[in-house]
């Protein structure tokens, strides 16, 4: 039917051009997600995904439970689907094409079920379909009732072979879908979005797809990126890092929510893309005999992730000691839980100032809120000529007038002078 004719019949009809590339991408996305239920996933372009589930029924708790998971997952990803099942892939696909949500569990019932399907499910050319209509054949049953030789001569053997494959009389081998090594999926938003929080709803669909993809590979990710595409500006990237690999959709969503709360959009968003490059194997975890065990460790990772999602990755860090004499280089900021050296440094303050603070010298005595009383020292630290950051200092422990203990040094280079570098607390 022409668009003009359709609009004449239904003036409020919304017409959208088909986008074959987007359809294929969606089909591949659904296949990657569905691979978590069975390794046997085959594509039926342009609109079908075939799952070989007979080996998966026990694992997922029966057909009904499996269908429930399929339906829920597809709905969460924003797809509507017709689910049908049969002992042969082609019969299952035809049932779905005809819009029949039927599940046939034996070859014996196949013939009767297929006989009622319209001839259109054969997806042969328009000419063949017209020829069938002209001789009064509307269903597969009516087609099968015709003499085979005549049909083969007039409409081609291919048509009969298709039906025989659907009935299981001919073999119907399929190439199984191999999921890509990386995950990347996009959603074009139906309307431009200006509030970052509103993106969460669309992003959630992609997260469900990502988690299915990861489940299929028994893997997890430690980092994923949500890219927000604008019309004119470069895309905004929202990267989420995790302490340990995971494929927990709820956790991903929660972290993304924290991050999106803090994102201000310079321009409306037209499309979002979720990308995860490094899929790492996710070892199954043995539960302790008492379920309480190990709970704290899990919580700990969640805590670090939540803090980082809101405050930024650099805001949460651990400390590591290095074999180094210059006080400001002894500690380097690291990931929490880093391996530690055991080193002995002598007397050191609890607080180190980020930058040494120049203090006055009055009558050869260093002053910081009053004269300082030197308690111990000097400890000479002279080091670092090899990397340009050389220091030459004499460190002292000093007592302030208010009894606080501080760590100060006298610069031995250039113009000298006294500096406050730490507080003993």
């Amino acid at each position: 039917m022409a668009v003009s004719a359709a609009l004449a019949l239904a003036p409020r009809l919304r017409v959208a051009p088909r986008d074959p590339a987007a359809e294929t991408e969606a089909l591949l996305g659904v296949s990657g997600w569905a691979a978590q239920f069975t390794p046997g996933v085959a594509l039926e372009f342009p609109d079908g995904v075939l799952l070989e589930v007979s080996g998966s029924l026990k694992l997922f708790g029966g057909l009904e439970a499996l269908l429930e998971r399929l339906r829920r997952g597809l709905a969460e990803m924003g797809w509507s689907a017709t689910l049908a099942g049969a002992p042969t892939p082609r019969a299952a696909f035809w049932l779905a094409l005809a819009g029949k949500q039927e599940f046939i569990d034996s070859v014996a019932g196949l013939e009767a079920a297929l006989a009622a399907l319209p001839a259109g499910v054969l997806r042969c050319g328009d000419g063949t379909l017209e020829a069938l209509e002209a001789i009064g054949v509307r269903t597969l049953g009516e087609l099968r009732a015709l003499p085979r030789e005549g049909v083969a001569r007039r409409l081609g053997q291919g048509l009969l072979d298709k039906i025989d494959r659907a009935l299981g009389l001919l073999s119907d081998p399929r190439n199984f879908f191999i999921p890509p090594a990386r995950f990347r999926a996009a959603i074009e938003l139906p309307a431009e979005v200006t509030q970052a929080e509103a993106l969460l709803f669309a992003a959630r669909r992609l997260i469900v797809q990502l988690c299915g993809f990861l489940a299929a590979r028994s893997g997890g990710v430690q980092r994923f990126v949500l890219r927000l595409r604008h019309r004119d500006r470069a895309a905004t990237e929202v990267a989420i890092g995790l302490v340990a690999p995971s494929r927990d959709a709820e956790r991903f969503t929660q972290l993304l929510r924290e991050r999106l709360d803090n994102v201000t959009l310079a321009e409306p968003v037209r499309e979002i893309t979720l990308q995860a490059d490094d899929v790492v194997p996710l070892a199954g975890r043995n539960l302790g005999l008492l379920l309480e065990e190990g709970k704290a460790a899990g919580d700990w990772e969640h805590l670090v992730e939540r803090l980082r999602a809101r405050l930024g990755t650099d805001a949460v860090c651990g400390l590591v000691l290095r074999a180094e004499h210059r006080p400001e280089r002894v500690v380097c900021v690291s990931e929490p839980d880093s391996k530690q050296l055991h080193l002995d440094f002598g007397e050191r303050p609890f607080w180190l100032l980020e930058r040494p603070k120049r203090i006055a010298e009055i009558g050869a005595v260093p002053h910081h809120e009053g004269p300082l009383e030197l308690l111990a020292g000097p400890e000479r630290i002279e080091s670092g000529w090899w990397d340009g950051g050389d220091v030459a200092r004499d460190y002292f422990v000093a007592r302030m007038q208010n009894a606080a203990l501080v760590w100060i040094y006298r610069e031995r280079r250039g113009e000298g002078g006294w500096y406050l570098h730490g507080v003993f607390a």
Partner: protein
Amino acid sequence: MAGTLFSFAALLERPDIWRGDNLSRAGTSTVPSGFPELDAELPGGGWPAGTLTEVLPAHEGIGELRLLGPALAALSNRGLRLAWIAPPHLPYAPALAAAGIDIAMLVVVRTASPIEALWAAEQALVSNACGAVLAWPQGAKYAELRRLQIAAEGGRAPAFLFRSPQVAGESSPAALRIALGTAAGGLAVHVLKRRGAPLARSLLLPAIPPALRSKNHHVDRHPAASAAARDFLTRLVHA
């Protein structure tokens, strides 16, 4: 009559009720402070877990971290995490390691604003994933402290809030409040508030001055920078 008396006695056995003239021996768990004279005055014999403890040092550097050192060391050596939220400076790992704290258990959270610090502290307390939470909130209001107190309740972590001594007069939901000052060269610990009878006198803990070790210099000089070496080279060239 006897029945009434009996039930009254039973009531006093409840862990969450204490008599005004006694210290609470509440069922809440505590972490020994490492100072016996202080433990004797703290309800339960140590820093209380699952509630806020306010530490009000008269000024920075008076010994507020040395006071917590033994407890933090014990917790970290049991494999429990120590969350430092919005500290005023970088905690210096060599000193912490010297105090026996396992610095692998240390996590520093740096925040950009006071409200972020409160949020991070609340998250750390709610998660119940830390062995101790140390936070330096700036200008927290009573309602915000109350949120932290609720977050801390039921947890296993002692929560230390370091606040300025000016707030000593304000009311606070913290179960334990301690002001630190100096006296006679030691650290004067004044318990402002605890569960139980108030403590009138302040405790004097030995000022734990740094062991005055200073003999181990660390000098790495560039060989060419040595004057003697330079002279030697010059003579070599002229020869």
